[in-house]
Each structure stands twice: as structure tokens, then as C-alpha cells.
């Protein structure tokens, strides 16, 4: 049963990941990323951390990608016009390097863990209580730091994206490049 779910959602994740990268329209890309993240969330559940799955959906798809859609709509980013230039050295270079990286990663991971058996699943691992105990004991300091980080991020984002007084609002329709 678990294998079936893994294969299904793994495949979904892969296909949508490719869609994210391949699709010209930013909205479609974002939506396929949503699908990828949901699929990964399911995989998290399979890996015994439902709390993270929920968190991911709530945080990532619920908030961050909505922000992405907002920005896409605000800046009226149209379809990415195909540059028309032949695939430059940049593309070939990156594809090559990425494949190289992926190949070596897979080979390494396969060698290292092809036969490793996951540890027995104790309740402590999956239950929210187990996670929260650890979170508020040994990881308390990072938890507080994260709070601070998020505050800083909020301030920074609002400051950077603010419209200076007197500056006319940017009309996306205006002289689009």
C-alpha cells in the first residue's frame, strides 16, 4: 500500500516539478509547484511526520505561493517570451552540470543506502507530542531565533517593496519592455 502511494505521489511530484521548470506561463509554473509541494507533503506523511506535512501545506502552499501569485499579478508578468536565441552555452552548461550533479548524487546515495532498512517507527517519532517536546527543549533557542528572523523578514520586505512617497504607482500596462 505504502509503495503504491509513494510511486503515485513520487511520479506526480516529478511531473509537476518538470512542469514548474518547463512551463512558460508563471501562473502555471506556480500551480504546478503547489502540486509538487502537496505531493511532497504526502511523502512527508509516509516518512512519518504528518505534522510537517500539514505545516508545509499550511505554510508553503497556503502562504508563500499565494504571495508568488500576488507578485505575478501585481507585476503583470506575462508569458515568458521565448528568447528566440538558440540555446546558449548557458543552457547547455547548466543542464550538463545539473545532470552531472544528479548523476553523482544518485550514484552516491544508491551506493550508500541501497539496502539500509529504516529504523523501527516508534510513536515518539511520529506523534506531534514527540516533535513538540524536542522542539521546545533542545531546539528552543533556534525556535526563538526563527521568530526574530521572521520579524526581520517582514520589516525588510515591507521596506523594500514600499512605494516611496510622491512616486506614482507603477502602472504595469505602461511601457512594458
Amino acid at each position: 500500500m505504502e509503495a503504491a502511494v509513494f510511486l503515485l505521489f513520487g511520479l506526480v511530484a516529478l511531473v509537476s516539478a518538470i512542469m514548474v521548470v518547463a512551463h512558460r506561463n508563471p501562473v502555471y509554473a506556480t500551480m504546478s509547484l503547489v502540486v509538487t509541494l502537496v505531493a511532497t507533503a504526502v511523502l512527508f506523511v509516509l516518512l512519518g511526520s504528518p505534522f510537517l506535512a500539514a505545516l508545509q501545506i499550511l505554510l508553503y502552499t497556503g502562504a508563500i505561493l499565494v504571495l508568488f501569485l500576488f507578485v505575478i499579478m501585481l507585476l503583470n508578468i506575462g508569458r515568458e517570451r521565448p528568447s528566440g536565441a538558440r540555446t546558449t552555452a548557458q543552457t547547455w552548461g547548466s543542464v550538463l552540470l545539473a545532470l552531472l550533479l544528479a548523476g553523482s548524487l544518485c550514484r552516491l546515495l544508491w551506493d550508500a543506502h541501497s539496502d539500509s532498512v529504516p529504523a523501527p517507527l516508534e510513536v515518539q517519532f511520529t506523534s506531534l507530542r514527540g516533535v513538540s517536546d524536542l522542539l521546545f527543549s533542545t531546539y528552543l533557542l533556534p525556535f526563538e531565533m526563527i521568530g526574530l528572523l521572521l520579524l526581520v523578514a517582514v520589516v525588510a520586505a515591507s521596506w523594500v517593496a514600499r512605494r516611496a512617497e510622491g512616486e506614482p504607482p507603477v502602472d504595469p500596462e505602461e511601457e512594458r519592455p
Partner: protein
Amino acid sequence: MQPVDLLWLVPALPFLGAAVNALLVRNHQKSLISAVGVGFPGLSLALALAILWQYLASIRPQAIEQVLYAWTTGDFAIDVGFRLDPLSAVMLFVVTFVGFWIHLYSVGYMGHEAGYRRFFSYLNLFMGMMLLLVLGNNFVVLFVGWEGVGLCSYLLIGFYYEEVFPPFAGKKAFVVNRIGDFAFLLGVFAIYANWGTLRFGELGERVLADPATAHRPYLLGLSVAGFVALCLFGGATGKSAQIPLFVWLPDAMAGPTPVSALIHAATMVTAGVYMVVRANVFYQLAPEISMVVAVIGAATAIFAATIGLAQNDIKKVLAYSTVSQLGYMFLAAGVGAYTAAIFHLATHAFFKACLFLGSGSVIHAMGGEQDMRKMGGLRKQLPVTYRTFWISTLAIAGIPPLAGFFSKDEILAGAFAYGADLYKLLWIVGLVTAGLTACYMFRAVYLTFEGRFRGSHEQEHHLHESPRVMTLPLVVLAAGAVVAGWVGIPAGLWHAFGLPDKNLLHHFLAPVVAELPERAAEHEMSVAIELALMLASVVVAVTGILLARRWWLARGLAADEAFAARAGAVRRLLENKYWVDEIYDRLVVRPLRGLARVCWKVVDTLVIDGALHVGAFVTELTGDLGRFTTTGNVRQYALYFLGGVVLLFWWMIL
């Protein structure tokens, strides 16, 4: 104030004359130019005669030294000084006397030339340099004079610089002399290295003081003295046009005739002989080198004599005759008869200068024509020139009682008496050359003055005797050619007439020659043999003359055609001067030119420029690479980043 104290003024005057003519006088002031040009050498002659008179009268064999400025750097001391001793006295007399008369002659000869002022300033400069060479008291001053004369010969050969050949001949002369000077310098350095001094006086004493250093083995497998002697002789061959380096002299005839007379007959070319005699102590300590000198001298003599036979240009004939006579002088030096060499040098200066000036007045009359085939029958139009030419030719042929006989005979006697049988062979060569000399000289005389005129009608009409200013020097020099011989009548002849040995010149020059004990015996010779030798040389000379009369006087040019018909190959060989120039060109000039090309093409462009280009290319390359990495394109930075990650990953993992 004794005249001797003004010794330094003798060379100074011609220098002054050259300066005045060069800087102060205008081209059109012809009379002023000739006044200055002839006046200053004249004053110098007068002063020289006064000095000689006082020297002969009172001082005699003792040498006088006069130092103008002593220059020392560290332990190296050179002083600008003059030295008067028997040898330089003779040379002083010859140079100033012959020089003055040639200056006078050139007033007439160069009268209508364009560079009149330039000519006289160069000529005076030359006189100054020659006197410096002759009177110098050490090798450095001698060398300064040596180079100075070389320079002036270059300037004067290339006097007609508009034409093509003279500048080339000037350059050739200068380069060949330089090669000789190089060897000369090596010799001077070796002297200083081994004996620490270059002054003639001290040198003689130091060398004789410890003969061991002289015999120490030194470079080129020779002893020290040997090496020095060879090097100095190398310089002499360059300057006095002996076998290997004589090629420049025939071409030097491109210069005006007075130049040929003064420089390429009387004075400069004899500098080599003077230098060898001055350094005779080394040659006496290195017998093998003396032998080399003798052999080269004899070889040059006969070699040049044979070429002389086939030349058609009158000046070329005289040039080869000079080379031949110089060969005689070196033969004398080689066999140890240094006084004979100087004696022949002096007599040769007189009659050869007279011959050249004679040919000058012939060319002057013929309107610049030098080819004997175009001349003939000039006896009637140029009587004075003909007579003086005749006298000088008799002198050079060695007919008693003229000068040539006594000096040449003494050389042959020296060669004969020199012991080893090789020198007997050299004596025979000398004898044959004497015959040849007589033969080609009389050929020249008969072709130019006898027979009927072969030139163009217009030339014939233009023929005239040269003005007095040119004929006077001819007469004086001809007289000199007659009288000069009596100074050195050999002892043998005196004894023959029962008179005490009155060989003035020999006794006068004796102190100059460093008498080494072991050499003393060689020169003894019975009076009978000496007389026999004299008779032999006279017989040879007369036969030469008779042959010349039978061929050229009787048949004129036909003789040459007949000779060419019968022995075409030999004729061509001689005419082309044994192709020596071509050989040199092929052996020396072409390889050097090739080397130069290699240096230029390979070393210069390829290696040096190449290195620079490579340097520039590398910098540009790195510049491009550098520029490439800072395009500001975020994605490229990301790519490099990823590349780094992958590399790090591979490095970490593998």
C-alpha cells in the same frame, strides 16, 4: 729655444691647416685655400728640416722624448708624447718632404675640381695624422695616427662621392684596414698585458731584460713574442696591403691621383713597415714569425708583379707595383735586414710618388683618360713628364746608380745571406720579381709614351704639358729618386773601391735595431758574393727592360694581343687579378651577409619580437578571461556557482 723642443709643432701645423681650411675659408677663395693648404705643410717641412739638422748635427743616435700630457687612470699610464730617434727621423724627413711636394702638385691637379677646399683640408689632416703616427713615442699615439690615416684614406678615396665606385672603394679600404687594425690592437694589448708598458723606449729594455717572458708559451701555440709579432704583422698586412688584405689598394685608385701618390704610395702604406721595424725586437725573438713575414713579403711581391703585367689602367699598374715593392720591404724585415727595409721604403717613396704624379699629369693631359690602350706617343706633348717618368722607372727597375738598385739589392743580399736554404728560394723569387718589375714598368712607359697616339682625335688635340706647379714636384722627386740611393751604398761596394764603409743610412739606423747576440753572425758576407749579387740583379733588370723593348716598344699593343692569343687563360687570370675579390666575396662576404640575415630574420623578428608578441597575447588572453567572468549576468554567476559545487562535491566524494 731649440728647434727640437718644437717637435710637437710638426704634426700640429698640418692639423691647424686642416682646421683653417675646413672651418674658416670659403669655397670660392681658391687662392687662400691653396695658400693655407700648401703653406702649413711647408712650414712643417721647414721646421722638420731644422729639427733634423740639429738632431744630425748634435744629438745623433740618442732618442729625444717630448711628453705633452701624461694621462694615468689607475695603474695604466699613457702619455701624449713624441719621440725623435733615427728611425722616426728618416720617416719624418720622407713624410714631410714628399708630402709637401705632393701638396704643391695637387694645387695644379685639383685646381678646377669642385671640392677643392674639402680636398686640401683632408690632405692636411692626413699629413697631421701621418706625422703623429711616425713621431709617437708609444703604441697608443701610434695607433691614433694609424686610425687617423685610415680615416683620411677613406675620405680621400671616396672624394668623388657623387659617383658610384669611389665611395664603395673608400668603404672597402676602411673595412679591410679595420680588420688589420683589429689584429694590431690584439698585439698592443698582449704587449701591455705581458710587459706593463707601451712606450717604445722602456719596452725595448724590458723585453731584453728578461727574455724568459718573451719565450713563455702564449696563445695560438706561439710564444708571447711570437703572438705579439704575428698580431702586429696582421695589422701591417692590413695597412700596407700584403697578401691577405691587399685587395683594397687597387680599388683605392678611384681617389684623385695626388691622393694615390701621397697615401697609397709614399706614406700610409709604409706605416706597416715602419711599425714592424719599430717592433723589430719581437720579430728577432720570434724567428718563425719573421720567416712568415719574409715568405708573405716575397709571395706578395711576385704575385702583384705578375698581375701588374696584365693591367691596362696606368694607375692600376702603379698600384700593383706598390704592393710588390711593399712585399720587398717585408721580405727585408722578415730576413732581419730592417735598415734595408727602411732604406727601400725611403727610396720607394721618392720614385713611386714621382711615377704617380707623372701618371697624374698624363691623365690630366688626357682629360681623365686612364686606359693605356687609349694613349701612346705622348713623348712629344709631355716632355718633362716623360723624362721624369723615365728616370723613376729606371730607379724602380733597379738600374745603378739610381736609388732603386741600392735598396733593392741590399734587400736581396740580406735575403741571400740569411742562412737557411728557404731564404735562398726567397732570394730567387726576389730576383725574378725584380725582372718582372722592370718588365711591366717599361711596358707602361712604352705603351703611354712611345708608339703612335691611340686616343680619340679630340683628346689628341687637347694634349698639353702640365703647368709648372705640377712639373716642378716631378723634377724634384725625380732628382730625389736619383740621389736617395747614395745615402745607403752598401759596405761591399765601398770595400770594392777600397774606401772605408760609408753606408750612412745603415750606421744611422743601426741603434734602432735591437742587436741580439745570437743574431749577429748571420749578416757576415764576403765582398765577392756581395758584388756577384749586385751583378745578378743588374743583369735581371736589364733583361727585363730588353724584353719589354722587344715586345711593347716594337709592337705596341699587338704584343698584348699576341700574348693573349697564345696564353689566353693565363692572360685572363692575370687581368682578373686571380679573381681574389670574387673569392673573398664568396668566402667571407656572402657567409657574413647570410649570418646577418639569419640574425635579422630568426633571432630578431622571431625570437625577440616573438617573445614580446607572446607576452602581449597572454595578457590579452587573461584579460578576456577576466572580462568574461564579470558580465553581471546573474545566471552566469549561478552557473559558476553550480560548477564550483559540483567540483567540490566530486572532490569531497571521490
